[in-house]
């Protein structure tokens, strides 16, 4: 008699050797969505605990950057802006999304190592860790974004209906940051040099994106290469939504495609690596 009496249970767990690539288990992710909020809430709580300014830092950090940029690039170097928009709001409309991008990117790249203590002791869909980081960073972004809107209005620039497109560019930003962050996080499992490289990479990338200058300053011959930088598309989009600069043209598509490729490949590689990552952690 080979047939075994097995109790019926909706919770049958099958453990087997997995080989090759596999699809993301979206249902499992959805079932554990509560954990996503708890992890995001933990990230926020822990980050601002015992600080005096608390979530004020979410505003202060990009603000200080804007002040420096305004003095150096706007004041000393007289970097031209589109439509003669005042430099402080011209740069802050890019610095604030950029801050989110940098936070998601470096947070995702380091999140697995930072959570090694949990990952080696209990199972849950591993992707929740980087996703929780995204959620936590979005809270910071939300606070900074409200201040940004206030700043724009204070400078007498009127908000246009184009602002309704913000979620689209925000999504593009997240997809790009998360996708690339997952790549770095997966590589970082094996080669810890990556985490040393990330801050440098973020700074370099910031100057390769239209944060302190207008994309119109980029020589025409370089425009196509420039458009391959997905953050160029994202920031051009943000400026259009907020400040009414030129509508993003077809040069947005390379950005979108690169971001999507980064995201899909990043998630796939992460899925592959997470399987046995606790053996390396």
């Amino acid at each position, binding site marked *: 008699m080979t047939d075994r009496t097995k*109790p019926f249970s909706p919770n049958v767990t099958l*453990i087997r*050797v997995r080989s090759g690539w596999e699809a993301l288990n979206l249902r499992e992710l959805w079932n554990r969505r*509560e954990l996503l909020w708890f992890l995001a809430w933990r990230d926020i709580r822990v980050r601002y605990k015992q600080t005096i300014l608390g979530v004020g830092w979410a505003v202060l950090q990009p603000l200080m950057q804007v002040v420096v940029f305004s003095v150096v690039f706007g004041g000393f170097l007289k970097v031209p802006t589109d439509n003669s928009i005042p430099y402080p709001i011209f740069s802050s409309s890019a610095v604030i999304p950029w801050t989110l991008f940098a936070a998601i990117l470096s947070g995702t790249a380091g999140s697995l190592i930072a959570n090694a203590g*949990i990952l080696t002791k209990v199972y849950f869909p591993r992707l929740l860790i980087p996703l929780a980081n995204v959620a936590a960073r979005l809270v910071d972004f939300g606070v900074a974004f409200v201040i940004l809107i206030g700043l724009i209005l204070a400078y007498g620039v009127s908000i246009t209906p184009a602002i309704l497109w913000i979620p689209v560019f925000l999504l593009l930003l997240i997809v790009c940051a998360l996708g690339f962050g997952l790549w770095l996080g997966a590589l970082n499992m094996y080669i810890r040099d990556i985490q040393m490289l990330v801050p440098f990479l973020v700074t370099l990338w910031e100057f390769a994106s239209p944060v302190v200058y207008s994309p119109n300053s980029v020589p025409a011959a370089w425009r196509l290469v420039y458009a391959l930088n997905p953050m160029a598309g994202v920031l051009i989009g943000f400026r259009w939504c907020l400040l009414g600069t030129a509508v993003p043209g077809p040069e947005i598509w390379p950005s979108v495609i690169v971001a999507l490729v980064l995201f899909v490949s990043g998630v796939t590689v992460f899925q592959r690596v997470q*399987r046995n990552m606790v053996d390396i952690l």
Partner: protein
Amino acid sequence: MKRDPIAISIHGLGKRYRIGSYVGTGNTLRGWLGDLFSRRPSPQSIAEQEPRYLWALRDLTFDIPVGAVVGIVGRNGVGKSTLLKILSRITDPTEGSAELYGKTSSLLEVGTGFHGELTGRENIYLSGAIFGMTRAEMARRFDEIVAFSELERFLDTPVKRYSSGMYVRLGFAVAAHLDPDILLVDEVLAVGDLSFQRKCLNRMSDVAQAGRTVLFVSHQMTAIRRLCNRTIWLEAGRVKDFGSTGEVVARYESESLGASEAGASDSHQGSTYRARYLAWALAGAPEENAHLISMLEPVNFRLALDVRESVRAGYGGFEIFDLEGRLIWSGSSYDQGRGDIPFIPGRYELFYRLPMLPLKPGAYRLHASFYDREGDRLLDDWWANPELVISLPPSSHPQDEWQGVLNLPCEFSIRKD
């Protein structure tokens, strides 16, 4: 033929680890990319690289019926924790498969997911969520968890200010209220003070009695004996024995003594010495039982001592410890009013005679020391090989068979005035 329903079914499970790190093996990024893009390591590449791998588990096949409480014993590094990690899906097996029927929780550590900056209350919610409790479940059980932890007054204190005992209590309290069908526990009772350990053990036997299936890894044989009805003995990644706890644990204990006898784990090192213990045996016992006590009768330990240089004021100490390191009994050459003893070079036999040694069955470690009282010099400090095995027939009620220290027949009587 009727069979019990199965809770855990394991077929040919194996896990291979890479020895050494990815970085610095001369094959880093390339090797990693190779792993990443090959669907499965080719047999050839395994053969080439085999020395760099270690099988932590191999060919594990067994079923565990619903409601069984199964202990897992074995020396360090035989794959006990790896097995639990695979079953709790923390890491994938390299070969084979397993099926778990029911909601599974793993308790591989006390306080999983705790963050020092968060308060006790916040950590209960966080840890619960990590273990898969829903918000509703947690709200329902929150008061119970707090009551179990006995930390009502410290709920709003950050956990980083907790003592280690408080931390463990909070962690176990969360884990104790998970209500899984299958519970995987790894050596978590080794922490905390004694009264809390007892509380945890009681909680675990409640869980066991409620018909849950429990897999319990521990080095504490008393805990295994108390909780588990069946025990798996792992050795070198394979199942060496699987049966009723009493038998398997007894075999495991006596064999682990044999292993230390054969191994080079003698605490003696070097070949130059003034005096040294060579061996011990039970005087008057036949050769095959020279280290085994199976009857309640006088016991005479004989220790062979080799003295190479004269010792003017010799003094010997002798102790019995249980495997958890508790001192059971100690004696010395001062007993019976004898003072320091002069030794000239030669072989001696030291006898420690006890009217009986009524201990619970199990293995015990013997320790002997030898001093020169002149200048208070420790000449030898010896953990005896092999260890002492006691297999007296149990004299108490089966329920208490493994509890306590002494195993003494007791005459009970009752009288009404």
